């Protein structure tokens, strides 16, 4: 029963995602909005790999997101106008940084871990902000554009908005599949064991720190990938992509959708992006609305939307 329900929900999600261009306009949306949902959904799911499935709170994921963004932008602008190379550079940069920093902080937990991730995140923000000559500083990295991808036999013109959406969707699908496989694997099960009871896992002989480090690195790998897509989407990136409020947004998306479920963060991202887009068009005081929304989610819907749905279906 659960398997069928699981598969139905997966199919439903994919039907909605694949048919987006058909119904987006009618609802008053626009293609770029959908692309943003997919990209940020990937980021939120990547964060949730660490948060929801390993039980470790990182509030500094925007740093690796931003490294991916700057990596692809700087590659296309300074090195070579090639999107695949840019994405590769962005992802490698983000993942390497995560590997180094993860090793430094893997022993910390809880509030302390969170604070340290915030602080390190700020370091990267700071570098992007101050290294003006290279990153453009506060002005951001501009004057570059995503390039069509040349496969030799055919060219994928992702400069077109709708084509880019599908490109992002493909990347998202592959990433989601990878993450899903990892979670179902013995490695993933171990992570969940660590989440449930770290001490017991340790007594069982599981090298907890190594697992947490690995989970951190994997999570940052996918978040930096999301970062590259984000920069490609806007043809622009700036230090705000690295700041702690961006990190906070990812966490909220994961919590909003449901930390314990796989697709939860995607739903959370969809709601958050659309809500913010909508509210900010209609009122200057959108910050109050978003803030109150955060607080309401935390106080009343801590299990997230999918958490509520699951509970209702179970009862």
């Amino acid at each position, binding site marked *: 029963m659960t398997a069928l329900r699981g598969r139905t929900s997966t199919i439903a999600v994919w039907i909605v995602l694949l048919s987006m261009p058909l119904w987006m306009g009618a609802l*008053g949306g*626009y293609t770029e909005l959908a692309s*943003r949902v997919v990209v940020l959904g990937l980021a939120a799911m990547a964060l949730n790999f660490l948060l929801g499935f390993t039980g470790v709170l990182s509030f500094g994921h925007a740093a690796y997101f931003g490294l991916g963004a700057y990596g692809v932008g700087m590659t296309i602008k300074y090195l070579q106008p090639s999107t695949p190379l840019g994405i590769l550079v962005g992802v490698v940069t983000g993942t390497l940084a995560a590997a180094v920093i993860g090793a430094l902080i893997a022993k910390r937990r809880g509030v302390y871990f969170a604070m340290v991730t915030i602080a390190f995140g700020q370091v990267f923000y700071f570098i992007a902000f101050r290294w*003006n000559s290279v990153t453009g500083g506060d*002005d951001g990295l501009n004057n570059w554009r995503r390039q069509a991808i040349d496969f030799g036999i055919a060219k994928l013109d992702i400069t077109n908005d709708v084509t880019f959406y599908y490109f992002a969707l493909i990347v998202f699908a592959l990433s989601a599949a990878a993450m899903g496989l990892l979670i179902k694997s013995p490695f993933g099960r171990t992570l969940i064991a660590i989440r449930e009871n770290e001490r017991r896992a340790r007594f069982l002989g599981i090298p907890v720190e190594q697992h947490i480090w690995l989970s951190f690195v994997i999570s940052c790998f996918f978040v930096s990938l999301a970062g590259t897509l*984000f920069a490609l989407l806007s043809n622009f990136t700036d230090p705000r992509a690295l700041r702690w409020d961006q990190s906070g947004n990812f966490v909220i998306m994961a919590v909003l959708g449901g930390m314990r479920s796989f697709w939860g963060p995607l739903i959370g991202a969809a709601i958050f992006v659309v809500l913010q887009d909508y509210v900010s068009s209609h009122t200057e005081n959108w910050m109050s609305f978003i803030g109150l929304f955060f607080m309401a989610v935390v106080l009343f819907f801590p299990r997230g939307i999918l958490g509520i749905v699951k509970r209702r279906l179970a009862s």
Partner: protein
Amino acid sequence: MSEHDLLGKKVSRRQLIQGAAAGATLAATGPFIISARGEEPVKIGLDNPLTGTYAAVGKNEMIGCELAVEQINAKGGILGRQVQLLSEDSTSGDAGTCVQKARKLIDRDGVKFLLGNVNSALSLAMADVAYEKGVLHVVTGGHTDAVTGKTCHYNVFRICNTTQMEANAVAPSLIKQGGKKWYYITPDYAFGHTLQSGLEAACTRLGGQKIGGDLTPLGTTDFSSYLIKAQAAKPDVIVFLVQGDDMVNALKQAVQFGLDKRFHLAGAQQELEPLEGLPPEARIGTWVFEWYWNQPGVPGVKEFVDAIKKKTGRVPTARTWFGFASGWTCALAANGAKSLETVKMAKFLQDFKLPPEVACMPDAPYFRKGQNQLIPNLFVGHAQAKGSAPDDLFKVTTVVKGAEAAGTLEETGCKMTWPA
């Protein structure tokens, strides 16, 4: 993780969710039901900060724009159709949001004109989008030279000055009032860098010299260590190039340290908004304003000032005027070119002079051909604690002709290409 038991509230939460879902669906579909009756209005999209550091100036630009649209509609609109202003919050620095809103305005709302941004970086990002989509873009308040310089485009116009123009306008007064040895306190981003290099060039031409300077990070709250260094260098003039809140902090602290009694404090760009935020004793220094409300006898000014006073209860600032002129530029371009096609409007605006009721300054400003940069007057003077009115915080001593302050077209680095 233990969880607070909310079972008792289960029923009401479910209702809450259902209600919220219903409400959200209703709200989401609501405004998108487009009524096809009557003529479709011509839409202008303003993508400017309404929150964050630039909220105050962004809002003022929006107000000026709103007034322009009201006046345009009263006079018959654009090509006989009513004009509608769509305003989006670009935030003060999140380029992702700014670009997203720009695309939203163009793709979903079908605006014919894109206006914005206060933030130089966001202006450049928006210009890229406008160029990609072929929409006429009027930059209201982003000063970085590149917009009408190295990365100029045929469809991107700018109302406010370049940093080069501001530097050239104010440098003579700084030499005369202060002296030849300058120490710079510069915000560390493109705007600050170009403003400083512009000033250094102008200063050297007039026989002055730079004896030192510091780059301060944006958002610096405490300038004490920089001020300590500045006074140790014993300059004639301490040049403050920081803007907005940084300006308020720096000047406040400089005056608290008594530095105004030992050195001449001055800078380049200054605006009414920071001056209003300073305590009266800190409203000092020689600056250049891009537009000022107290211009007795100049046609168009009184009507504009009165209209804004009626709308908001305060006098217009340079930012208000930027928004006003930007809005009017759209209407004048379309009505003049008798078309809403971007290329035709852009061609019409080459060397186009703004009429007096829009210009609100002694000499008619015009968009320089081949650069799309408005060449207006610049107002050099000094800040004052109070003047003829509580809002009169600046005393204009010299009105500079823009053509004299602007360099040559070659110097700007703009090589404009037109679509075939």
